């Protein structure tokens, strides 16, 4: 009820209708001090443009890279980022939380 992620999904629809390849990344689970709650989303198009956030800037780069693959393959993927994972720490979720992000193509 207090969600303000409104224009992200509108943008996803408009990008898709304009003929772009589009992926939607959504936080589905969080543990510890994750910066954005479940339901937060990031929409990515095949030019690499993106709107919204899944972590407040920490792992967006990695999600966008995966999203471009998923736009090409059409296969959804569940990504996990957290301090336990060396590479995830490298991409920057240094706040100590773990998040799972579901990335899917808008088909």
């Amino acid at each position, binding site marked *: *009820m*207090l969600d303000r992620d409104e224009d992200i999904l509108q943008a996803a629809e408009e990008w898709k209708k304009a003929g772009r390849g589009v992926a939607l990344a959504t936080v589905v689970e969080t543990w510890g001090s994750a910066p954005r709650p*479940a339901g937060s989303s990031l929409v990515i198009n095949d030019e690499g443009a993106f709107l919204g956030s899944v972590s407040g800037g920490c792992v967006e780069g990695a999600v966008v890279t995966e999203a471009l693959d998923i736009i090409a393959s059409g296969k959804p993927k569940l990504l996990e980022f957290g301090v336990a994972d060396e590479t995830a720490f490298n991409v920057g979720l240094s706040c100590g939380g773990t998040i799972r992000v579901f990335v899917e193509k808008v088909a």
Partner: protein
Amino acid sequence: MNLETLAQVNIERAARRPVFVVTDVSNGDQRLVKAADLASDPLRNELSKQLRMGKSAVVEAADGKKLFINVYAPTAKMVIIGAVHISQALAPLARSLGYDVTVVDPRTAFATPERFPDVNVVAEWPDVALPPLNVDHYTAFVAVTHDPKIDDPALLHAFKSNCFYIGALGSRKTHAKRVERLKAQGATDADLASIHAPIGLPIGAISPGEVAVAIMAQITAQLRLPKEGAA
């Protein structure tokens, strides 16, 4: 998500109706649940709970499948009748909790942008101000002018709009008189019982800021607690 689902989600959101997308994250299977179909859905308990909490979450279905429920709930609105001292404390508090706030008061000396920065202020009588605001179920409606000429017609409008919260300032005595007046103007017993009055949780509030906290806490309880537990 297919484009059709996405378009439906956007239509429901634009109409300020709650909508859910349920996704099996193991394979991407997905379905849309509109508010109108909530009562007959196999996941109705889980969906209702997540809607009430305004939270998206992974739940385990009866068959052990892990499903992600994404809740798209309308942004809550607050309509405050009365550009008074309490409202000056309540408006920024409500904004910080994520509400879209509108203050209505026909008294132009009160309803000024200087007194209410960053808030939509409408210096009109309720009969003019309220219809364009689309007061709906996801609206907390607060009447604090203390003036029946302004509060009464506003409350009558709120009754018709199924607001999740209606509160009105005034002592028990003041409220008893208000109930008589509103009844004479056609309000039902159910309408009158829906008014929280005296307004706010009983926390001994004295200053306008404390009254604002009491009101905001009562609205939050009404929003988040299960129906029987709401204050």
